[in-house]
């Protein structure tokens, strides 16, 4: 293997960056789970809050997408 150490570091970094996606997965699950538990307590109010659910999920998910982007940049652009 004649690959240089920079390339190795980039690949290891890409793998490490993927761990951020796990954190974002926890966040999205937290949002959806809390919404569901609230919705089951008061189903009448749930329909009006689905927009908030999606906004919350989008914000939590954006950070996971950022780490995915970092991984992609390390794999293909650096």
């Amino acid at each position, binding site marked *: 293997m004649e690959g240089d150490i920079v390339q190795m570091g980039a690949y290891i970094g890409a793998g490490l960056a993927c761990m951020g996606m796990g954190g974002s997965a926890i966040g999205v699950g937290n949002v959806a789970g809390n919404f569901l538990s609230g919705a089951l307590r008061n189903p009448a109010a749930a329909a*009006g809050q689905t*927009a908030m659910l*999606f*906004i919350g*999920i*989008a914000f939590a*998910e*954006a950070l996971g*997408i*950022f780490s*995915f*982007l970092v991984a*992609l*940049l390390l794999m*293909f*652009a650096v």
Partner: protein
Amino acid sequence: MATEAQGEEGGLVLHPMDQFKVEPLFGGDTVAWYTITNVTLWMALAVVAVAALLVLGSSRRAIVPTRMQSVGELAYGFVYKMLEDITGKEGVKYFPYVMTLFMFVVMANFLGLLPMAFTTTSHIAVTAVLALGVFLGVTVLGFVLHGAKFLGLFWITEAPLILRPVLALIELISYFVRPVSHSIRLAGNMMAGHAVIKVFAGFAAIAAVSPLSVVAVTAMYGLEVLVSFIQAYVFTILTCVYLRDALHPSH
């Protein structure tokens, strides 16, 4: 970014990033700003599809709607309700812009799901233009409507005085990150989903796991249909949220 994918590594028959290559349609290999590429083609197709759906759908105006008319009416009512719920009556004026954004993004996402199609929304260049349009439009609108009072968005009067500069800094940063996250969310989701499908499709070349691979591709495809719609919905709803901030800056 995705166009820089390198195809050197072996193993996979088709590289998962190859589908995002921008190529000129009519020969040649240099891409200038006027070159007609596959991105141009699929964006034009998305516009044509939206126009066909809405124009043909609303041309008959039957009491008992046809299928196309019901889809058009559903889309209209969906976006209208979303905008009105979030921004209130004042935001309804900006309905055409929001509707245009939603229809274009949802149609580009769905067209990208066709086999051999090109997903235009998977390129940050495309989504960044959409997000920057929203960002600049909303900022200009805020200053036109409220003048210097628009800066009250960053100076939160409910907070204690000592905290306000810190909060202003945080609000300022989060305001300027908006177009970045707004565009990367859409592009990242679309690119990730399509790359995963291609990775599973690459496994189909190995005979032992090919049935599993077909099942996995089918399942991922179903998920992608859902994601395509949800991401268009999220893109639009965040546009509405930013619009609300411009219309009512004092929280």
